[in-house]
Structure formats: structure tokens, C-alpha cells
């Protein structure tokens, strides 16, 4: 090169460096001014002079700052410099699109997943409930350890009457109870979702009326005329949005109810799915002067007094509960309160609404976080390789006087630019993914529906990206920049430094370990899901339809009339072509809770058995019709099921029990002929056991794995609902009509069923048409949702780990081309080379698998709560995960290994 050009280049480099001390707004002009000064000098002497002149650029830059009244090194200045670095970094990325696209896409996957999950977390867990002063709201309920370890009862009217008068830690307390009602409309009988509430609920939920007024305490007394609020949806859908609706009367459960207002949209009952929101609100009208029962059927929420805490509320309620037997001797015996350990608990409302959903979402967020970590290690690897290729550039900059701060700032700018680009793509991904997630999510998940990408999630994503970007820059920063990127070092290309090699190895090992953890977690969940799906619900769900129907009390008085209506319906339905069998039951298996109702026994020795085993005599008590066991596919194990004759004559008093029931109360004996009293009746007359049927799965309470527990059930004949005396407010009782069909599309029977019911009574509404297969699938829907998300996360992790391993092995192979060529030149076979490369990769993978196994074991307790029928340390899951990962790793390293085996020794040796 012409010596003059060398000097010119040096001078330009100096000016370029000096320009970095000039504020950005003036930098371009500064550079142009100096360009004009630097003329191409032909001889060495004037060349030197040019170089010396260029040194003046630094003094000039300083002068420029002082003349313009700018101090050097201000924050603003620094940011301007930084922005410029970002611009340079962007230009650099544009020049290597392969690297940029891979890195940004990888980061976007990790960050996008985090953003989507965080949006859900934010909406469901972090955002406060939509009620006034939500932090002061608690749910009150009763623990009854004497009945069962997880036994939780709702509140009673007696407790409400007592606590609203006495408890000072509670500012306000409300009861509610969801029920259904029949409403006669112009379009025929309609079933409405209604809720009976105390007037205090209006204020507790922050309800507003868009038309008319809310329920006042004056409405909420037994003497007051019946009034009701309707929902906006009901008003529009059923009443056509009639503006004069307030003051009109609706016939609700055969009684006139005056409509006093329309509830504003967006009012939710805590824990109720949005699509199940009440359509009608009526006052509970509890009679404070009347007799109270031990009727724990009312969910309750309360607002704590200023300064009270759930603990202080529980403390006060302990003392008050102790007084219940004195105040309500007819409802609460001293033996019950003390003997059963009855106590009232106050749980923050949000905690109670979310149940274990919060922890489930955090687990998923953790899974996505692992994917993000893997993505970051992948990009770190790419970044490292890229920086390696640019060591000469960095070294040159250092030699030209760029100080560590400048170089460091530049490297950080590159890392951050990459991460922020990733974050932008991630936000776009999440914007699309969050609504998709809410569609996939089972409807029973509270607060999930309607979630969208939240602002907080965007902020979190960018914070994560910021951290990720700094982490990316950290390694080059501490190696290349700190050492000043010596020029000497940059010439050593064949022997890449051991440290960097080790770091790359460590990155691969950690990727494999993290991916294994996710694959193990996903594997355990999928195993649980399949266990759950194949779990014997005790029924044959195929081809079984169920539909709810409600008899009007006014039109069907008395047991015999109810039974004759039911029998009539059943006979007409059975006559429909395609119907194999039909029956009725109060609750469906799997979706029904069955409850636990105390049973009395004719044979007193049963009580000795119970005493010996512990617990109580309560069991799920169901009212069932003939044909039900057959239609539902519940096997009769001993004796027989109900016949019409059993029900036609109520004095026959027959009853059927489940196997679990028989095993518990009459171990080693035949239960046939034994006498049982519903509701704990020990006086008689008793119902005598005519048959034993198989156990069925029941719906479970919070925290229990669904389908995991067979119900201990006792089936009473439907004509005589033993619960009726307890459930005055519940009439008409809901029953599910269950139809077994041998048609390929059972739901095509529905019109015929509707017609058959209408022939018996045209005022019976039919609702909740469903098929049992859907009911069974729904029971595992939450686990299916979590499994799906975790499986996606694990799949992504696996893919990223494979890409990471592939990248590293490819890089190693390319760096060792010469060495491999040499080996082949002296006789190594392609197979040897392949084995060498794959073997090298496998030692990393093996280490990763070991570490991942340890990590999984350590974190298995976190997912343990979600598992059903699988131990969190299931060797099968671990072995499968390790096998899968190894397989993927072998494939990923085999491709570069094959390339290595094809190296032409002559080419390779010539290349360097």
C-alpha cells in the first residue's frame, strides 16, 4: 500500500475516535470538517505531519464542547453516544442477517412465552379483584376436621345473624346462594341462573344498577314483597331491553316477583365463570326472628373492619363460635362444636377464588422462564462466536485508543440491541398468543377469560430483555474488552483459547440440563393426564346424553305426583327409537360433588365399626330412578337395581348402596337387607338395601386431583327425596335425565326428548344438554391445559437445545478442520472422525443429563401438586426424558460429524 494512504487511514481513525467526544448533533459536521483537512500526502514526512495534525481533532472536539457550553461526559451526552453505538450495531446486524434472524427469533420465542404467561398471571393473580377495597374482602367458611381432614362447609344463616351483630372485626358480611329458577315468558318456560343474596352483598360487590335501584335492607326481610334485579343480558335477551321493565312483575318459580332494577354490566360473583353470571338477583330474606338450622349451604364474603387481618378475624370468630350452642341450642350442640373441632376461617377472597390456580400459573411461568434461559444461552453462544470473529476489529479499536468504556459501551449496545429486537418480536407474538391461550383454557379457570396482552407484561418483557442483553454482553465484556483485546491475541486463530471452549461447553451442558428438567416435568404431567383419562370413572360414558329438567312445585304437589310425572317422562323417552335405556338422578357422576350427608343405621354394630375406623357416617346421598344405573353403565354387583314397582309403593322403602359404602359400613358382610336412615335418622322407618353397585368418580374439591376418589354413595328412590325437608328453598329440585343411545350421534335425539317431556308437562324447561364423554373430558381439562402448555415449552426447549448443540459442534468442527484433515491424512477413517465428533458432543450431553436429573429431582416437589397417579420421581419419566434428549442430541451432532467425516485432507491442510 502507498505509504501516504496508510497515514491518511491512521489520521482518519484518529478523527473518528475524536468524533466520539463530540455531541452527536454536531458529529457529522465535525467529521466533514476534518475530512476536508486530511489531504492525501504522498511522502512519508508530510504523512507524519498529517497524522500529527489529526491528533488536533481531540483538542478541537474539546474546544467544540466548551464553545457550545457543553460539559463533557454528561448523562445526556453518554446516551447520545450510546444511541449512536446502537445505530452502528444495527448496521452490523444488517450485514449478517443469518446471525440476526436466528438470534432474534430465539430470543423472541423465550421472551414471547414469558410475556404471554405473564399476561395471564397479571390478569388472574396480580390484578386485584374487581370489587371495592378488594384487599379487605375475605371468604368465611368452616373447617370441620371431625368430619374429614379436608371438610370445609359454607356458612349458615345462624352464623350470619349472629356474626353481623357481634363481630367487631367484620364491617359487613354477606351470604349468597346460587340457584336456578323457572320463569314464564312470552316465549315459553325459561330457566334462569339466579342468586339469592343478603342486601349487604350489593355494597360488598360494589354493584350498580343501570336502571332502577338495588336490593335494600328493607327488601331483605321475610315480610317484604318479593323483588328482584335482572342482569343486563337477561333484560336484553329475554325481555327485549324493555325500558319500562322496572315495576313490572315476573313469575319466578310460580311466585310473582317485582323487578326493581337492572344490574350494570361487568358485575361478577367471586369465583363464578363469566359465562355463568347470574341473570337474576333476589333477596335471601332471612328471618332474624325465626328458627335457625345447622344449614351450611351459603357461601359468604365479608369486608374486614379497618385494621383487621384474617388472623384477627379468625381469632375473634373462635370466641364467638364457642357461644353458638348457647345462642342457637336447636342448631348447634356443644358436642358438635367441640367434638368436631368446628371453627370458622377467613381466607383472603382472592386466594379463595384462585385456589391452586395461582401456583399452577407460576409453575407454567417457571417453565417458560426455563425456555427463556435456554434461548439466552443459545444466543449467548451465537454472540460469543460472533464476537470471536470480531476480535481483530475490537483489538484494532483498542490499539487506536478507544478506551475500555467506549469498547464496553459498544459491546453492551450490541447485546441490548439484539435483546430489544427480540423483545419487540416477542411482544407481537404474545399479543397474538394470549387470546389463543384463553381460548384453550378451560372455562372453569377463574378470571382467565378475556385476558389480553397486559401493559405490565410488556414492561416485564422489556426488563427481561434488558437483563438478557446485559448478560449477553457480559462475557465478551470481561474477556475481550477487559484485557484490552490485545492485538497479539487476535492472531491466534487455530488454538482457540481453552477458556472460551470451556464456556461454550458449559453453555451446552446447562441447556441440556434445563431442557431435561422441562421434558421431565411435561412427561410427568402427560403421564398424569393419561392416567386420569383412563381412570375408571365407574361409568360407560359412550353414547350417554344428560339433560337437566325441573318440575314446577305448584303443578306437581306431593311425592306420588312427582314420581308419576317422572315415570311418564321416562316411559315416553324409552319409547323413542334409538334410546337403549333412560333414568334420572339428582347429580351426575364426575361433575357432581355428591356432598356428604349423615346416614343412620338400623344395626347398631355399624357404629362400632365406624368408631374403630374413625370418621363419620356421612356419604353422598343421591335420589335415583329405575333405569339410571343401566343408562349410566354403572354395574350392579350384588342384588338388583330399582324397579318401577319399588317406587310405585313408597312403603317398600328400598335403597341401593355403592361398593365403597358397603365395604365401609358392613365389612365382610352382605349389605342386602340392612336398614339405613337418610339424614342420620336412627329412629326408622329404615330403607332396606336391595343392591350394591360399582363406585363412580365424583367431582373433587379444591386441591384434590379430579377423578381420584370414588364416591361413597347411597342411592335413594327418586320419588321420595329425603333431602326435601332440608331444602325448602330448593324446590323444584333439579334432576338429570340420563339417556343411553346406540345411535352414532346421540344428540340427534334431543328434539324427540324435548317433545316427550312436553307431552307430560309443557312448562318443564330443559337445560344443560351435555354428553357424559364431554363431562369426563372436562374433569381433566385443567390438567390437559397445563400439560399442553408445558409440553409446548418442553418441545421448544428441546428444539433450542438441539440448535444450540448443533451450532457449537458445527463451530468446533470448523475450527478443527485442519486437525481433522491431518488425522485423515495419517489414516483416520470417516467413521473414526464421526465417532470422535459425536463422542465429544455426548460427553457434554451426558454431563447435562446428570445435572438436569438433579435439577428435576430438586424441582419435582413444585409440580407434585398437579400430578395424579404418578410419583414426581417416576423413573419412567426420567428415563424417557433422558433418552429423548440423548436421541435429539445425537441427531444434532451427527450432522456436523458427517460433514467432518467428508473433509478432504488436502483441502483442509491447504486452507490455513
Amino acid at each position, binding site marked *: 500500500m502507498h505509504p501516504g494512504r496508510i497515514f491518511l487511514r491512521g489520521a482518519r481513525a484518529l478523527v473518528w475516535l475524536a468524533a466520539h467526544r463530540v455531541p452527536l448533533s454536531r458529529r457529522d459536521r465535525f467529521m466533514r*470538517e476534518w475530512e476536508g483537512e486530511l*489531504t492525501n500526502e504522498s511522502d512519508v514526512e508530510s504523512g507524519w505531519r498529517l497524522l*500529527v*495534525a*489529526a*491528533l*488536533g481533532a481531540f*483538542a478541537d472536539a474539546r474546544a467544540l464542547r466548551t464553545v457550545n457550553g457543553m460539559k463533557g461526559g454528561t448523562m445526556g451526552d453518554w446516551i447520545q453516544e450510546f444511541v449512536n453505538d446502537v445505530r452502528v450495531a444495527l448496521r452490523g446486524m444488517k450485514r449478517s442477517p443469518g446471525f440476526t434472524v436466528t438470534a432474534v427469533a430465539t430470543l423472541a420465542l423465550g421472551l414471547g412465552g414469558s410475556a404471554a404467561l405473564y399476561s395471564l398471571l397479571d390478569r388472574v393473580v396480580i390484578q386485584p379483584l374487581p370489587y371495592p377495597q378488594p384487599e379487605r374482602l375475605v371468604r368465611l367458611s368452616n373447617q370441620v376436621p371431625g368430619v374429614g381432614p379436608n371438610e370445609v362447609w359454607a356458612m349458615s344463616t345462624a352464623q350470619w345473624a349472629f356474626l353481623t351483630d357481634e363481630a367487631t372485626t367484620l364491617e359487613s358480611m354477606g351470604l349468597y346462594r346460587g340457584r336456578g329458577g323457572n320463569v314464564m315468558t312470552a316465549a315459553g318456560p325459561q330457566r334462569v341462573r339466579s342468586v339469592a343474596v343478603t342486601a349487604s352483598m350489593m355494597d360488598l360487590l360494589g354493584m350498580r344498577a343501570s336502571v332502577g335501584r338495588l336490593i335494600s335492607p328493607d327488601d331483605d326481610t321475610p315480610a317484604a314483597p318479593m323483588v328482584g334485579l335482572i342482569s343486563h343480558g337477561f333484560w336484553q335477551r329475554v325481555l327485549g331491553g324493555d325500558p319500562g321493565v322496572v315495576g313490572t312483575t315476573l313469575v319466578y318459580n310460580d311466585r310473582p316477583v317485582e323487578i326493581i332494577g337492572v344490574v350494570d354490566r361487568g358485575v361478577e360473583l367471586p369465583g363464578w365463570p363469566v359465562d355463568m353470571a347470574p341473570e337474576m338477583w333476589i333477596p335471601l330474606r332471612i328471618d332474624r326472628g325465626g328458627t335457625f338450622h345447622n344449614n351450611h349451604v351459603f357461601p359468604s364474603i365479608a369486608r374486614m373492619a379497618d385494621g383487621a387481618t384474617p388472623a384477627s378475624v379468625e381469632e375473634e370468630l373462635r370466641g364467638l363460635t364457642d357461644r353458638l350452642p348457647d345462642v342457637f341450642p336447636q342448631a348447634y350442640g356443644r358436642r358438635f362444636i367441640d367434638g368436631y373441632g368446628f371453627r370458622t376461617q377467613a381466607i383472603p377472597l382472592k386466594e379463595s377464588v384462585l385456589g391452586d390456580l395461582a401456583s399452577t400459573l407460576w409453575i407454567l411461568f417457571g417453565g417458560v422462564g426455563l425456555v427463556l434461559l435456554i434461548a439466552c444461552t443459545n444466543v449467548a453462544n451465537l454472540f460469543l462466536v460472533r464476537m470471536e470473529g470480531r476480535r481483530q476489529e475490537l483489538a484494532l479499536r483498542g490499539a487506536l485508543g478507544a478506551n475500555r468504556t467506549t469498547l464496553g459501551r459498544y459491546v453492551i449496545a450490541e447485546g441490548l440491541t439484539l435483546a430489544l429486537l427480540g423483545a419487540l418480536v416477542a411482544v407481537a407474538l404474545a399479543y397474538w398468543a394470549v387470546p389463543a391461550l384463553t381460548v384453550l383454557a378451560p372455562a372453569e379457570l377463574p378470571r382467565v377469560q378475556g385476558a389480553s396482552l397486559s401493559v405490565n407484561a410488556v414492561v416485564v418483557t422489556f426488563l427481561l430483555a434488558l437483563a438478557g442483553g446485559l448478560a449477553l454482553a457480559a462475557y465478551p465484556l470481561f474477556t475481550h474488552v477487559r484485557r484490552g483485546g490485545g492485538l497479539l491475541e487476535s492472531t491466534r486463530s487455530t488454538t482457540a483459547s481453552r477458556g472460551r471452549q470451556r464456556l461454550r461447553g458449559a453453555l451446552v451442558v446447562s441447556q441440556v440440563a434445563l431442557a431435561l428438567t422441562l421434558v421431565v416435568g411435561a412427561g410427568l404431567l402427560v403421564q398424569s393426564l393419561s392416567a386420569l383419562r383412563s381412570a375408571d370413572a365407574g361409568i360407560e360414558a359412550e353414547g350417554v346424553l344428560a339433560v337437566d329438567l325441573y318440575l314446577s312445585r305448584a303443578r306437581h304437589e306431593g311425592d306420588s305426583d312427582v314420581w308419576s310425572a317422572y315415570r311418564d317422562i321416562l316411559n315416553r323417552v324409552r319409547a323413542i327409537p334409538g334410546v337403549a335405556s333412560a333414568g334420572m338422578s339428582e347429580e351426575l357422576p364426575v361433575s357432581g360433588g355428591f356432598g356428604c350427608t349423615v346416614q343412620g343405621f338400623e344395626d347398631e354394630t355399624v357404629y362400632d365399626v365406624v368408631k374403630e375406623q374413625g370418621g363419620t357416617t356421612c356419604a353422598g346421598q343421591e335420589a335415583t330412578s329405575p333405569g339410571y344405573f343401566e343408562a349410566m353403565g354403572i354395574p350392579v354387583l350384588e342384588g338388583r337395581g330399582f324397579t318401577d314397582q319399588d317406587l310405585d309403593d313408597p312403603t317398600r322403602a328400598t335403597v341401593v348402596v355403592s361398593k365403597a359404602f358397603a365395604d365401609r359400613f358392613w365389612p365382610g358382610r352382605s349389605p342386602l337387607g340392612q336398614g339405613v336412615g337418610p339424614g342420620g335418622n336412627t329412629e326408622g322407618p329404615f330403607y332396606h338395601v336391595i343392591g350394591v353397585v360399582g363406585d363412580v368418580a365424583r367431582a373433587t374439591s379444591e386441591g384434590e386431583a379430579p377423578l381420584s376418589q370414588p364416591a361413597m354413595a347411597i342411592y335413594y328412590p327418586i320419588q321420595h327425596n329425603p333431602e326435601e325437608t332440608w331444602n325448602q328453598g330448593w324446590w323444584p329440585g333439579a334432576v338429570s335425565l340420563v339417556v343411553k343411545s346406540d345411535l352414532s350421534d346421540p344428540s340427534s335425539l334431543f328434539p324427540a326428548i324435548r317433545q316427550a317431556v312436553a307431552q307430560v308437562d309443557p312448562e318443564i324447561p330443559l337445560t344443560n344438554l351435555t354428553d357424559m364423554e364431554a363431562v369426563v373430558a372436562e374433569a381433566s381439562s385443567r390438567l390437559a391445559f397445563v400439560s399442553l402448555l408445558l409440553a409446548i415449552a418442553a418441545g421448544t426447549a428441546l428444539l433450542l437445545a438441539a440448535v444450540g448443540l448443533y451450532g457449537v459442534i458445527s463451530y468446533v468442527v470448523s475450527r478443527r478442520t485442519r486437525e481433522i484433515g491431518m488425522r485423515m491424512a495419517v489414516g483416520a477413517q470417516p467413521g473414526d472422525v464421526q465417532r470422535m465428533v459425536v463422542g465429544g458432543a455426548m460427553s457434554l450431553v451426558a454431563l447435562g443429563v446428570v445435572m438436569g436429573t438433579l435439577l428435576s429431582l430438586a424441582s419435582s416437589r413444585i409440580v407434585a401438586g398437579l400430578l395424579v397417579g404418578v410419583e414426581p420421581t417416576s423413573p419412567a419419566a426420567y428415563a424417557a426424558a433422558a433418552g429423548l434428549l440423548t436421541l435429539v442430541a445425537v441427531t444434532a451432532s451427527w450432522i456436523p460429524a458427517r460433514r467432518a467425516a467428508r473433509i478432504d485432507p488436502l483441502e483442509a491442510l491447504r486452507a490455513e
Partner: protein
Amino acid sequence: MTSKHGGTDPSLSYNGAVVLQALSQGHRYGFEIMRAAHLPSGTVYPLLRRLEASGLVASRWEGAADARREGRPPRRYYEATPEGVTALAEARERVMAQQALFGHLSPASEG
């Protein structure tokens, strides 16, 4: 406008005067002035900035066509403003007076 950086301050620095003098002799850009005045680059360039900021010197870009003809980037040309010419005249008088003074003390320097 602070006295430190010149302005209408009558006490134009010696180097400032030298740069103005070089400009008045027809040297038009930094590198040229550096060579003519035998001043280091670290002095000349900041001085030009300050003189311009205090209005004694004005600058303009060389025409792009002219620069292209010579096969180099356009230069920034400087020239003294009327105020600069006045300031230079004052400075020159001062320097002359000082030289006269030094001449009396040390005749040998006048050769």
C-alpha cells in the same frame, strides 16, 4: 461571551493574532495555517473554533465542484471578519510596540 474565549476582548492572545495574521495572508484552512504559523494542530483547531464563536472569524464550505476537481473532500475555509480585521490591526500595533520595546533591549534580535 466570556473574556476567556476572546470575544471583543482587546487582549487577543498571541496565538489568536498569529492565526488571524495567517488568514489575512491568504491561508484558508486549518492544515495550511498550522504549517504557515508553525503552531501545533492542538492549538490551531481549537483557536479557529473560539475565534469563530467570538465573531472574529467566519467560515464557509468550499464548493463541492471545486473540491471534486482536486479529487478530495470539500474543505471548510476560514476568513477574518471586519471585526477580526480590526482586532488583528490592534493586535499588530501591540505586537509592533512590543517588538520595538524588545528591539531596544536586545538589538541583536533585529536581524
